[in-house]
């Protein structure tokens, strides 16, 4: 079992009183609570802080923790020989045991301690990373999880769980799916907790996702924008021919209906092609001459509004 320095995690001295421990916990919880924090590793940090606080705020658990002695954080150690009997932790092996599991099962450790009534299992949330193609077609994912589970003595153990689940087509980024009964095991006849899968879509090389709608950049040559054209646009279900009207402007959106992600019951999102006007970086002498000829004869002024605005400005001053 690896040692964790709960006082160090909370940044308090070993003789700190409960009020100081609570104050330190609150300060760190404000910083790292996963519901309010954007810090990197906020969830992991908060778990450490909450675990330290859970143990140190409870006088019995704190005394038991103090009796484990002082070790370096992460150092492998075993509690003193009579520690288990003294703190009602029962008899078990410490191999693959987490310090938090040890304290969760102690006397005075809360509602899940031995001899208490039934308790529902915890709900857990895990991210599931999918490609956009998986979200479009639906997929199956295999989950390898290590779930905390109470044994008959009311002690927590990590139990590996492997199962597959079907991800329905049309899930969107950030969506949460519930897998009933696959969370923590209930204790003493309590119902099992649920597992929530949070969908995280990998960025796609071509498409950007907004809910069920997709966006793709549609670069056009200057002459295509002026004259109009037809182009093949890739979609998740094969390319479609898109008619681009003459005189289209950069930033305009062309909607390709029902080529987005499928929606849960019926219908699909749309695909939007965002027009960009791309200028060639390298041109031949002939092209340059033709552009120059166009520049000489064209009356088009793309900055006509500048002149109008300057006139208005000078009138007001």
């Amino acid at each position, binding site marked *: 079992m690896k040692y964790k320095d709960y006082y160090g995690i909370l940044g308090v001295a070993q003789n700190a009183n409960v009020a100081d421990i609570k104050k330190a916990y*609150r300060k760190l*919880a*404000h910083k790292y*609570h996963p*519901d*309010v924090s954007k810090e990197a590793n906020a969830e992991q940090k*908060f778990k450490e802080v*909450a675990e330290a606080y859970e143990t140190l705020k409870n006088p019995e658990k704190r005394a038991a923790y103090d009796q484990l002695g002082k070790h370096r954080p992460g150092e492998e150690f075993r509690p003193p020989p009579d520690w288990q009997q003294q703190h009602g932790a029962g008899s078990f092996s410490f191999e693959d045991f987490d310090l938090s599991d040890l304290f969760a099962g102690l006397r005075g450790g809360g509602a899940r301690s031995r001899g208490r009534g039934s308790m*529902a299992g915890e*709900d857990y949330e895990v991210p599931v990373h999918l490609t956009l193609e998986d979200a479009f077609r639906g997929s*199956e994912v*295999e989950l390898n999880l290590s779930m905390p589970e109470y044994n008959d003595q009311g002690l927590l153990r990590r139990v590996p769980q*492997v*199962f*597959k*689940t*079907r*991800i*329905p087509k049309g*899930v969107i980024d950030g*969506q*949460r*799916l*519930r*897998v*009933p009964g*696959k969370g923590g095991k209930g204790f003493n006849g309590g*119902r099992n907790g*649920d597992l929530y*899968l949070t969908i995280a879509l990998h960025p796609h090389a071509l498409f*950007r*996702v*907004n809910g069920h709608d997709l*966006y793709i*950049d549609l*670069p056009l040559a200057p002459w295509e924008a002026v004259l109009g054209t037809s182009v093949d646009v890739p979609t998740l279900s094969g390319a479609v021919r898109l008619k681009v009207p003459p005189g289209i402007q950069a*930033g305009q*959106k062309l909607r390709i209906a029902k080529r987005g992600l499928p929606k*849960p*019951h019926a219908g699909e999102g749309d695909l*939007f092609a*965002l027009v*960009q006007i*791309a200028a*060639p*970086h*390298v041109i031949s002498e002939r092209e340059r001459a033709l552009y120059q000829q166009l520049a000489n004869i064209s009356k088009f002024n793309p900055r006509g509004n500048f002149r109008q605005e300057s006139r208005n400005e000078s009138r007001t001053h």
Partner: protein
Amino acid sequence: MKVELTEISWRDAQQVLSLAQLAELSGLRETELRELVDCGVIDPIDRDAGEPSFRADCIFTMQTARRLHKDFELDAHGLTLALALLNRIQDLETQLSELRVQQPRRPRKKFLEE
């Protein structure tokens, strides 16, 4: 090893939950949920109905409420404020992400030369 296939139970915001179901799924007590209804944090589908029912997607807000209640010891008024602010952040993030996806990426030069 044969791997068991487990079905997802719902993915649908349109599904309706009773107060008891919402309590079971969120981990909050029915009295706490009623208090949050009174504070306007969640809206029952029909306020005049004898027994309130809720849209299934409010479960995530209620799970957040349970975590904030447990981890910060917030009362119903504190929760109402925290959830309103989180909701506002969520709306702003959604707007930001909508604007981001509509922002064209700069085309890479090598593709323009092909």
